[in-house]
């Protein structure tokens, strides 16, 4: 059953349409991540769900109840903000318990829930501190604690980790994910970081300019991106794109020929113009491999593997190779391409072929 339902929801600020009508339904207990470049309307979508922003059109339902015009407080949601939004003059304990106190929850229940949340989040040593005496990671934990003690129907997160340093970010994303699993509460999580999206989500929604480009589980998104934008956005380093032709069961780049596996060749048949896409990490041997000659421009050793930044017929190509792969800047080199992992897109519509 769909737990959160957005039907034809749209948003304009004045004459600028930020979100054209958008449909999205979220299952009960699902961890859904909205991802996309900065300014694509992720925050706006989340804030409409929270009721902090009015909708310009459409309908929102949470748990089967129409909340399109309900106040944020009536929606039974909890939100974690990017800048923590803690009450600066209250201790950690009061921050977590404040909403319950306002709603007249009895003392015992408040204490029990605050204790439970602080145990879960490792906040016990800090309960009597003020937010300004906490580190960024601890503050964000308090914000999460404040959200989860309310036992809401839905958690909303707006880039909660982007103010933390890289190491802490990795730790916290696992923590949040595990916590959500344990509680089984539906969660909508906004981020611009595709790694965060891929690692945390049950389902990722990739947005561009207010439009959903693809909504799928992380593996599908990686293996079968619906279009060039998604293919380019998901994966790091990004996928290489080269204009090509498909003739006689092979991909023809300017003067190079890369044979396709037979079933792919049969599916695609002959095509004049296509965009050939291959991820750097798929430049590896396989049952259906081909050779690609490129002109190395720079070499970036990363340790476990090395990135070769090169050029094929005037197009930039990144290849991920073994650290011991013999390559020198300026001397053409031949890399192996796993043709079972090749992607093809229509050059005009950019849709997957």
């Amino acid at each position, binding site marked *: 059953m769909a737990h959160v339902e957005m039907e034809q929801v749209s948003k304009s600020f004045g004459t600028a349409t930020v979100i054209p009508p958008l449909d999205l339904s979220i299952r009960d207990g699902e961890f859904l991540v909205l991802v996309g470049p900065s300014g694509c309307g992720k925050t706006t979508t989340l804030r409409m769900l929270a009721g902090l922003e009015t909708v310009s059109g459409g309908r929102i339902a949470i748990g089967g109840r129409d909340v399109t015009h309900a106040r944020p407080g009536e929606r039974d949601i*909890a939100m974690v903000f990017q800048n923590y939004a803690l009450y600066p003059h209250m201790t950690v304990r009061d921050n977590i318990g404040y909403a319950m106190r306002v709603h007249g929850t009895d003392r015992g229940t408040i204490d029990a829930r605050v204790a439970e949340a602080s145990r879960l989040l490792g906040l016990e040593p800090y309960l009597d501190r003020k937010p300004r005496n906490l580190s960024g990671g601890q503050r964000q934990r308090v914000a999460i604690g404040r959200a989860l003690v309310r036992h809401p129907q839905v958690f909303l997160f707006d880039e909660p980790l982007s103010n933390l340093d890289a190491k802490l970010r990795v730790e916290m994303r696992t923590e949040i994910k595990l916590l959500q699993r344990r509680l089984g509460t539906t969660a909508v999580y906004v981020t611009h970081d595709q790694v965060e999206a891929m690692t945390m989500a049950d389902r990722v929604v990739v947005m561009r300019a207010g439009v959903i480009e693809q909504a799928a589980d992380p593996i599908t998104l990686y293996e079968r991106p619906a279009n060039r934008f998604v293919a380019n956005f998901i994966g790091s380093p990004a996928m290489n794109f080269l204009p090509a032709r498909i003739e006689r069961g092979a991909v023809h780049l300017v003067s190079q020929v890369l044979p396709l596996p037979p079933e792919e060749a049969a599916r695609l048949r002959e095509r004049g113009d296509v965009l050939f896409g291959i991820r750097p990490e798929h430049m590896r041997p396989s049952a259906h491999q081909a050779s690609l000659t490129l002109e190395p421009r720079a070499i970036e050793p990363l340790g476990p593997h090395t990135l070769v930044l090169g050029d094929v017929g005037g197009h930039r190509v990144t290849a991920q190779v073994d650290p011991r792969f013999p390559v020198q800047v300026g001397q053409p080199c031949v890399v192996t391409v796993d043709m079972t992992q090749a992607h093809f897109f229509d050059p005009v519509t950019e849709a997957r072929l």
Partner: protein
Amino acid sequence: MNSATARRDGIKHAFLWPAFLVVLLISLFPLIYALTVSFQTMRIVPPMPPRFVGVQNYAEILASARFWGSMWTTAVITVLSVVLEYILGFALALALHHNVPGASLYRVTFLLPMFLAPVGVALIARMVFHPYLGPVNDLMGALGVGNLPFLTEPNLAMAVLITVEVWQWTPFVTLLLLAGLQSLPGEVFEAARVDNVPVWRRFWDITFPMLLPLSVAVVFIRLIEGFKVIDTVFVLTGGGPGTSTETLTLFAYNEGFKKFNIGMTSALSFTFLVVVIVFGTVYLALAQRLTRRYA
């Protein structure tokens, strides 16, 4: 220390002393001079040679009913007007901050009273509250209350003085509190909205405590300024009827420029200084207790 550094060290005196002497001359000298004068009798009319009398001036002041009366008047005017200014100012700042309908119109004009000279304000108020010609009494007449002796009945005169103070200085409080409100982090209030905290609780539990340090400062400034009130009183009531609205500063002025009793005036000024310091210290101590509860 070798001789070169010793010489360089000596240069510090060349930099320090001129500045120190200038400060001494222009700010401390008048104070010290006034303090010595306050221990003497010094009359200009009729001329009398200065004579050292010790603390006699101070003793006279403390024994005078007129002094205690002016002290009470000053305290009442200051405390009541500052309380009203703070409440009204906060309400207006909130209205402006939340763009209540009509706020934009008010936004353009609300600072005007603050820009007017207090004497000008007092002259306007004198006309407005004029017993026969003023519009307020026209209104009272229309309401069937009849003419009220606004400036000649002690309680009414105090009320008028407080009204004028509030009218002139509420914008100042509004301005500072509005700036404070606009600097508060918006996400905190959104978090409270999501947590279904009602408006009234949001104000008392979040807005008010977060603005408390600023409020303490604003009220402090207004208290100290309010204590010095003289111009409006001088123009509106001249301290009357009798001495019922005479403030400390006006009392000192009358001693100095009506009786030309310079020694007494100096002693009064110093008493006034002590009163302000005591008042301010007590206030700050109380305020600190309050803020420590929150901050």
